[in-house]
């Protein structure tokens, strides 16, 4: 069990009023807040160790390099990856997926090859493949959903075939909350001789996670959704995969030798980290991982299941309110998207904001899913380690108010 009261003490931002009410931050699927341990790591870095890394001989450069590489090891441990050198730091999950589309896709795919995704994907796991399709003439195929918002496994099975080269799917939907059966999907994918990319942007921050158990070949996620700073994403590749890929961005730190006639590349992961990295934020991301590990991920998951159950019960009791996605809180993450009759989600979000309640309204970068659900937008509340039951009361109150306004 999480000691939420103690945890809240670590998050300075939570202790403020917004529009005359205590802030209730329920927009965690967009980005989470940061504990003082993470903020302090940034301050400490800039106040004591800041230097450019890898090529520097002086003391600050040594310290910065060590701390930066330390986070790589922490990330590897956190996701159960055997080799820290298979961790590449990017700007965000989006860039991690684009990196695979370019450095793996451009090099390995030919016209007629197929990439399979689903209609519950975030735009970050759709558009890179559409752009690749334009560049290489590959075919992009879309798995559909069951009526209760799960991946339609029969449909998916039907799409994966001899032409499939990559299956790229979200682990946990940022709209429906759905947790996909990734190990089973990995099995189907590998049986077809294809690779499996897992978009872990919503799952790695919220679940006990092990890349081995997922069966993924590539994994992408973002620091800012797991208590860490903005500006850091992670790409992990199964042993040997990244090594076989050519470079993506060119520049400092990713080369072995540069000559006019051509250049040779540094080893993985440096080959994929061109130019000065986001050193400070990578180091502070290490503090975020320490923080999550100190809470333990099973406890985080348990806490979020409890909040999600409560939220679903309370919201479903409101007449005219519909929740999207699976009914079973164990089959989903702490993300609850809903509709309220006659209240447009933007109005819902504005009225919630007038109560100090931060929820998100819109297409959530999932327009294919919105079209499937037949709505232009949804309202979404999403949870993190510092949320508590009382905050769901505040949300319910805001929804009741919105219903009144638009009655």
């Amino acid at each position, binding site marked *: 069990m999480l000691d939420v009261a103690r945890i809240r003490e670590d998050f300075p931002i939570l202790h403020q009023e917004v529009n005359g009410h205590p802030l209730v931050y329920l927009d965690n699927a967009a980005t989470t807040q940061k504990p003082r341990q993470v903020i302090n790591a940034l301050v400490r870095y800039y106040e004591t160790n800041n230097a450019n890394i890898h090529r520097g001989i002086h003391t600050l450069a040594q310290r910065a390099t060590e701390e930066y590489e330390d986070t790589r090891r922490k990330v590897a441990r956190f996701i159960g990856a055997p080799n820290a050198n298979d961790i590449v730091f990017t700007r965000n999950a989006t860039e991690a997926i684009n990196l695979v589309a370019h450095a793996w896709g451009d090099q390995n795919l030919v016209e007629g090859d197929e990439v399979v995704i689903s209609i519950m994907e975030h735009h970050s796991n759709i558009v890179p493949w559409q752009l690749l399709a334009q560049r290489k003439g590959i075919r992009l195929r879309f798995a559909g959903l069951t009526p209760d918002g799960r991946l339609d496994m029969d449909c998916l099975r039907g799409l994966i075939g001899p032409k499939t080269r990559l299956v790229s799917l979200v682990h946990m939907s940022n709209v429906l909350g759905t947790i996909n059966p990734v190990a089973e999907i990995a099995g189907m994918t590998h049986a077809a001789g294809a690779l499996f990319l897992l978009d872990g942007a919503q799952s790695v921050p919220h679940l006990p996670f092990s890349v081995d158990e997922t069966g993924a070949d590539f994994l992408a996620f973002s620091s800012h959704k797991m208590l860490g700073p903005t500006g850091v994403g992670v790409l992990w590749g199964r042993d040997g995969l990244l090594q076989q890929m050519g470079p993506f961005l060119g520049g400092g730190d990713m080369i072995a030798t540069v000559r006019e006639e051509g250049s040779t590349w540094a080893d993985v992961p440096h080959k994929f980290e061109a130019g000065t990295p986001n050193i400070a934020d990578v180091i502070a991301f290490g503090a975020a991982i320490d923080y999550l590990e100190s809470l333990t991920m099973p406890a985080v998951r348990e806490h979020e299941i409890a909040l999600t159950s409560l939220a679903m019960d309370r919201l479903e009791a409101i007449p005219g309110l519909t929740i999207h996605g699976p009914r079973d809180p164990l089959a989903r993450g702490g993300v609850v998207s809903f509709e309220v009759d006659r209240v447009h989600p*933007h*109005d819902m979000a504005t009225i919630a*904001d007038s109560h100090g309640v931060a929820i998100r309204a819109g297409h959530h970068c999932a327009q294919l899913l919105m079209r499937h659900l037949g709505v*232009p*937008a949804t309202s979404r509340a999403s949870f993190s380690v510092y949320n508590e039951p009382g905050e769901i009361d505040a949300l319910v109150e805001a929804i009741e108010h919105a219903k009144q306004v*638009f009655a």
Partner: protein
Amino acid sequence: MSADPFDDLYRELILEHYKKPRNHGPIPTAPIHVEGVNPVCGDEIHIDMNVDEGIIKDIGFWGAGCSISQSSASMMTDRLKGRPASEAKDVMTEVRAMLIDGAPAGNDLGDLEALEGVAKLPVRVKCALLCWNVLDQGLTQAATTA
């Protein structure tokens, strides 16, 4: 006006136009069709209009969106139907000044004055502006095909 920006936002008039939009629905015979979408939130507005000899003879809108975008369109068509295109441009300029720069509403705006409170919530200003940007296209088309 009240001190709470949220009270100003959802004024009676806005809710009334939202719940019972005027001039709602396509006009199949209208020669001009324009549309626009707010990529940030997905709000969509379509406008059909018939501009004859400089007069907006007929105008209708439809689409999907929040109370602000839909009521803004309803009030807009209400205010402009039957009026000269030149007047529409003046009103458009005035509404934009009110929404973007927070300029006080002139008394020729009619119901549109109710949108004044939107200026205090920058994130919703785009909702209110959408139909005006679409109208702008329509007026340009009317001018070039006249």
